[in-house]
């Protein structure tokens, strides 16, 4: 059974391994994680959470078939709220794919119309 501590450490390690190397800004440049930062405990907690979430999402993208550097680039373009919504829910979210299902829907609709009309 994993304690809350163990789980947090795991998340931190994942973030450090996968996310941090991508975040080191050069001298003179301010990092993207500083956007909309105010000095407050809530903002600091938000920043830490975002950091952990981003590492997690990058790791999840990799497990879904994306190479590490592409995963980092894709995560970097997400907002904090978007990252939060993705973390841990990535398997359940809709993934737009194709209109192959339209044929089935069309058959159902045609069937219903026909049945309703001719039944009268």
């Amino acid at each position, binding site marked *: 059974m994993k304690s809350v501590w163990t789980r947090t450490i795991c998340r931190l390690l994942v973030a450090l391994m996968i996310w941090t190397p991508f975040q080191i800004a050069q001298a*003179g440049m*301010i990092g993207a994680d500083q956007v909309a930062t105010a000095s407050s405990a809530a903002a600091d907690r938000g920043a830490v959470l975002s950091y952990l979430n981003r590492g997690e999402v990058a790791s999840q993208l990799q497990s*879904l078939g994306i190479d590490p550097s592409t995963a980092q680039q894709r995560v970097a373009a997400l907002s904090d709220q978007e990252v939060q919504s993705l973390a841990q829910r990535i398997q359940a979210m809709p993934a737009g*794919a*194709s209109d192959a299902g339209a044929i089935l829907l069309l058959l159902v609709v045609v069937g*219903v119309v026909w049945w309703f*009309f001719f039944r009268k």
Partner: protein
Amino acid sequence: MVLLPQVAAFGARNARLAAGVFFCALLAALQGCAGIAPQTAALLEGMPAGLPERVELTAVPFFPQAEYQCGPAALATLLVSSGVKTTPEALVPQVYLPARKGSLQVEMLAAARRHGLVSYQLAPSFVDVMRELAAGTPVVVLQNLGISEGWHYAVAVGYDWKLGQMILRSGVTEREEMPFAVHEAVWKRSGYWAMVAVPPDRKPATADASRWPAAVAAFERAAIGEANASHARGDFAAAERTLRAAMRAAPDSVIVQNNLAQTLADQGRDAEALPLAERAVAAGGPHAAATRETRDAILKKMGRSVPGTDLKKN
């Protein structure tokens, strides 16, 4: 399509609208039209004020989708409409998830930012989609065309209120006409998810004062991250391009000003860099120390005295 005699007597001009009404009435008999397509029911009463009866954005390009890749195709449609040079193939590595055989909504929003456009999720409103179309902006909508899994991105490019139909680029169909009720029924299943992507100095017609700032901030954050990555690679020209786009969307962003100043200085363009660096310093705030460092470094490079370190004025 088979029509009842009463409907046929409606007249040619209203035939399609009548068919749409008939279809809606049919659904109503089965489940309750208000449940299936509530916003369409409201539309049938009359066109919202200020909107034309018919809009079609014929200039919007068409990219027939490859299997499972309606995401890249729909996104390419949006980006190219706003002047970005790209193709569905180029977008596959940015939005497509092989293991899910599709593209996630938030990644569609994110990928648009990487091409210098501000992406914005519309309110869950049929009328808002029409407003965006009337303003000349194509809209990507997420539909569910199957029983449980059938998620599909299509691009709304127009509507015809008299005929009661939406016009979409969808799959391999350049011009798909969908009755309002059917469109709403398949679109409702995604929670009426719709997005637009606009150039950084523009604002969507339906931009909501409570949600638009967050969309701009998300664009700003993505641009800064990408520019930092370019800068770290030594690609200063790319970093500059990205940051200038960010400046257009968020002209008061201290981080953008600072980072653009640094990027210009790194290209030897100190004279251009200095005013930006000064502007960043003048703004104060949480980044005051970092911006002062940037400004002072530029001054040193130019052989000018740094404020607070030299008794003699330059």
